[in-house]
């Protein structure tokens, strides 16, 4: 019942001519526990005509899953005196720790560059907010470097054709999180696009949290360094000692 009211409210808010987008995600909570090797999220939903029936035309769907943003220093190595060492660096205020874009067709065929840049549809259009004054060409070089690095670590992804549509109503996309994801709140934003214009968008959230033993260890290391360190020392001394005793018996 709630959902119907929500839908009606959406219709009123969006105006009668915009389609209705109902997004959902396979799990709203990803738990990082022992043996966590990453997770596969299924982003799915339906797109309906303003009257609530099956959409009469084709829409293009783009989903963007974005992790918590962080301030980072990006360092670039250069060959100096025969050695590759960090030379140039730049700071970004809002680099997402995770960013995945999935679309039903190549982004360039769906929207023009301006629209893509406004909605950050694609890794090319990430808004990283550099700190301080930086030349555009240099910023481009650094951004490209960051995207390339994160892409190879599986933290930035782009899947043109990853969104599958069925019967002009349902869409679904599978997006993978690697084991190295940061914890925090992830936002999944879905865009319905027609004739190069974003006609509807909706956001859902996913919480990535450490649970159980992993949570305990991370919290202890952060808040209780002294005890944590003592424990680590005790474990290493204890294990070395026990091994010595065991082998003395052999």
């Amino acid at each position: 019942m709630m959902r119907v009211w929500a839908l009606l409210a959406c219709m009123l808010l969006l105006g009668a001519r915009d389609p209705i987008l109902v997004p959902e995600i396979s799990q709203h909570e990803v738990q990082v526990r022992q043996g966590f090797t990453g997770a596969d999220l299924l982003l799915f939903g339906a797109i309906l005509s303003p009257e609530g029936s099956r959409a009469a035309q084709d829409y293009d769907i783009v989903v963007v899953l974005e992790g918590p943003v962080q301030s980072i220093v990006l360092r670039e190595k250069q060959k100096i005196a025969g050695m590759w060492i960090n030379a140039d660096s730049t700071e970004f205020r809002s680099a997402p720790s995770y960013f995945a874009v999935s679309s039903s067709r190549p982004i360039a065929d769906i929207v023009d560059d301006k629209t893509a840049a406004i909605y950050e549809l694609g890794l090319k259009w990430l808004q990283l907010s550099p700190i301080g004054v930086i030349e555009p060409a240099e910023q481009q070089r650094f951004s490209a470097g960051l995207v390339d690095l994160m892409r190879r670590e599986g933290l930035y992804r782009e899947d043109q054709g990853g969104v599958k549509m069925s019967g002009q109503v349902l869409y679904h996309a599978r997006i993978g999180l690697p084991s190295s994801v940061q914890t925090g709140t992830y936002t999944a934003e879905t865009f319905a696009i027609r004739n190069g214009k974003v006609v509807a968008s909706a956001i859902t959230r996913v919480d990535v949290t450490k649970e159980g033993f992993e949570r305990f260890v991370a919290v202890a290391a952060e808040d209780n360094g002294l005890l944590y360190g003592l424990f680590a020392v005790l474990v290493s001394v204890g294990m070395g000692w026990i091994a010595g005793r065991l082998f003395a018996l052999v």
Partner: protein
Amino acid sequence: MDVYLPIANLSVNGLVIVGLGALTGLLSGMFGVGGGFLTTPLLIFYGIPPTVAAASAASQVTGASVSGAFAHARRNGIDYHIGAVLVAGGVIGTGLGSLLFRLLQAWGQIDTVINILYVLLLGGIGGLMAHESLTALRAERTGIPLPARKRRHHPLVASLPLRWRFYRSGLYISPLAPLLLGMITGVLTMLMGIGGGFILVPAMLYILGMGVNVVVGTSLFQILFVTMTTTMMHALTTRAVDIVLAVLLLIGSVTGAQVGAQFAQKAKPEHLRLILAAVVLLVAMRMALGLGYRPDEIYTVIGL
């Protein structure tokens, strides 16, 4: 076997880490060195963030040196007096190292400095060891014994003020010399995640002129305490000690160390030293190449 490392924030193959620990443990048992000089670079090659690698490798060295230290203590092979001075120096050194670590990190050159240190130290010491064991082997083959080395400390040590008697080592030298030596190994332990045994042992023999029968035991004693301090220091400052990673490494290294010690009893010391020299030189060469070749990743990300 997938194991998630809660501090490194990534999942690794646990068996690979245990194997890695066993390999370095084997070396440490065979040669009486901590094996940290291999663990840290190998962990980094495997994809563990460098800070976590250095912080967690220190606790592995602790584990590997415990049983050795106990064994030497039982046969009275530790000079606790000079050992205490070394440890005091080591503790000061880890404090300095921790400051240096943060400074270099802010400056962005920590990785380069670690790499250059590795190349210089491993290259230098590996070269020395290779030279020494080769001359020893040659002398044995030709049947001409090497002239006995006069056990004497370096003239620089003699020039330091204030002299203490260290009875077990048979020394009458300034405590500043072992203190400085301890400090240097402390800094290196903090920066590189190594125990410093392969620097400490030759320095004790040739610079301080300590008696051979207490050198290895005392070095293990110092390594034990300095790596414990390093672990604490990392736990309090960088917060990068990954207990899961450390335990995996320990499982491998404590067993490896025992197996290695059995090996060592059967092999000739000159051969062992030659093998160790080869391993050390190989690591140094790999590191030197790593500095010169274009790295896979030109860019690195550090959180603010």
